[in-house]
C-alpha cells in the first residue's frame, strides 16, 4: 500500500487525491485530523467507502490513486460521502453513445 493513513481511520492513496477511503465504519460527525485542518464527516461512511477531502463542484473530476475515477454529478462538500449518488463514471457509457474512444483517458 502506498499512501497515507489518516488517524487509523482512512487512507489517502496519493497527494493529488480528493477522496480518502474509510478503513473502519465511520459515523456522521466523526472528526479526522488532516494536519492543517480538521475534517468533519457530514454523514456516516462505511468501511471501504470514500469521502471528500475538499469541496468538489458539480462536473469536476474526482481523483483517487492520482487518477480520474469519474466526475461529480452534484456539488460535493468536504466531509461528504462520495459514491454512485454523487460521482458518475465517464467511461463504458454505451447508453450515451459517446465518441469512438468512449471518453477521455486522463
Amino acid at each position, binding site marked *: *500500500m*502506498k*499512501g497515507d*493513513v489518516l488517524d487509523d481511520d482512512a*487512507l489517502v*492513496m496519493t497527494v493529488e487525491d480528493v477522496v480518502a*477511503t*474509510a*478503513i473502519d465504519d465511520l459515523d456522521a460527525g466523526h472528526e479526522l485530523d488532516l494536519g492543517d485542518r480538521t475534517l468533519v464527516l457530514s454523514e456516516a461512511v*462505511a*468501511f*471501504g*467507502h*470514500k469521502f471528500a477531502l475538499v469541496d468538489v463542484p458539480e462536473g469536476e473530476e474526482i481523483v*483517487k*490513486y492520482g*487518477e*480520474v*475515477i*469519474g466526475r461529480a454529478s452534484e456539488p460535493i462538500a468536504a466531509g461528504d460521502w*462520495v*459514491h*454512485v449518488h454523487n*460521482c*458518475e*463514471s*465517464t*467511461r*463504458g*457509457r*454505451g*447508453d*450515451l*453513445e459517446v465518441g*469512438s*474512444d*468512449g471518453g477521455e*483517458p*486522463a
Partner: protein
Amino acid sequence: MVPTFTGFRRDDGRVGVRNHVAVIPTSVAASSIASRVASEAGAWARATPHQMGTTQPDETRDQTERVLAGVGRNPNVGAALVVELGTEDIDAEGLADRIARSGKPVETLSIRECGGTLTALDQGAERASDLNEAVGNVRREEADASELVFGVECGGSDATSGIAANPAVGDACDRLVEDGGTACFSETPEFIGAEHILADRAANEEVRKRLLAFVERRENLAKMMGVDIRGAQPSPGNKEGGLTTIEEKSLGAIAKGGTSPVNGIVGYGEDLPVGGGLVLMDTPGYDVESVVGKVAGGAQVVAFTTGRGSTTGNPIAPVIKVTGNPKTWERMSNNMDVNASTIIGGESLPTVGERTYDKLLAIADGDPTEAERRRLEEFAINEIQPNEIGELGTEVRT
C-alpha cells in the same frame, strides 16, 4: 538466486505443478459422463464439464476447441481422456490430436460408439485408469521459478482489493517476473479507465496498439448493444463494497499485475509464453471463464484476489485466494489462503508481497489450496455472442 519448486516435467518442456488425468468432454452432451468418470475414478482425475460445443457458429466453436485443447495441454495435466457423444462438430479424435502435440498420452471415448452411457462409464473408467497407470508414478523434479506461468484474477472486489490484495499479488508478480517467470492478468472490461496506464507500460508500439484495440472493442460491444457498462461494472456487490465507478475498479484491478512492462497481450485461451514477463489476456470479466482462459493458455497456478469473498476454484490449476478485507479473512477463513488485510493494519507491501510469492511457490511445490481441499472446481468457456461476430468480427483490428 532464483527460487525453485518441484514439478512434473513434460515432454514439451513445460513443468506441471499437479499431475491430473483430465477428462475433457467435447460438448455439453458429453459433460455428465466426463464428470461421472472423473468423480468415480478418484482425486487424480479431473473433469472439465462445460455448456458449449454443440450448435455453435464456426468462430465460437473454434474458441471452444482452442480452450479445450489448451486445457488438455496445460502442464498440470499428465494425461487426458477426451469424451464425445459422437454427434458433435468437435470430434474427440481431432481434439485428442491437438492435445497430443504436447507429447502426453491421450485417449478418446465415444459414448455413441460404446453403445450408450452404461458401457461408456465402464470403458471410461478403464481408459482413465490406464492413463493414470501410465503417468501416475511420475516423480516431481526440481524446477526453476522462471518456468512458472502465474495467472492473476480478481472477483468480488471491494475497496480493499485495490488498496491491499491486488498490490500484494502485484508485488508477487513483480518478484516472479524478476525471477524470469510469466505473470498474466486479464478481464479486458476492467482495463477500461486504466488502459492509458497499461498502454504507457507497453514494451513496444505493437503491444500498445493491440492493447488499446482490445479495450476499444469491449467499449464498442457496449455501444453496439446500447448498454451502460456501469450496469455491470462495478457490480452491485462491488458498489456495496465501496467501489463507485468502472475507472476506480479498473485502477485497483490492474494493481494485481504488478509494475513491470506489458510484454504482450494474447486472445482468449491463446498460449502464454513461458519466461514471458507480464503478458495480458483478453477475457471477459466473468471470473470462471476468465480463469479458464488463462489455464488454457498454460497458467499452472492462479491467484484470485477477493474483497467480498469468493469460493471459486478450477479443476486443473490450484487457485490461491488472497483477501485484503479483514472481515472476509475472518468470516471465510476456510476459503482463503493469504491474508493481505494486514497491509491496512500497517504491514508493509513488500512483506505481504513476499509472503504471497512464498505461498505461490509452496502451492506450486504441492501444498493444496483451500479450494483444492474442498474440491471447488468451476469450469466454463466464454462464448462469443452471435451479434458480436456480425458487428465486430472475431479479430481485433489494430
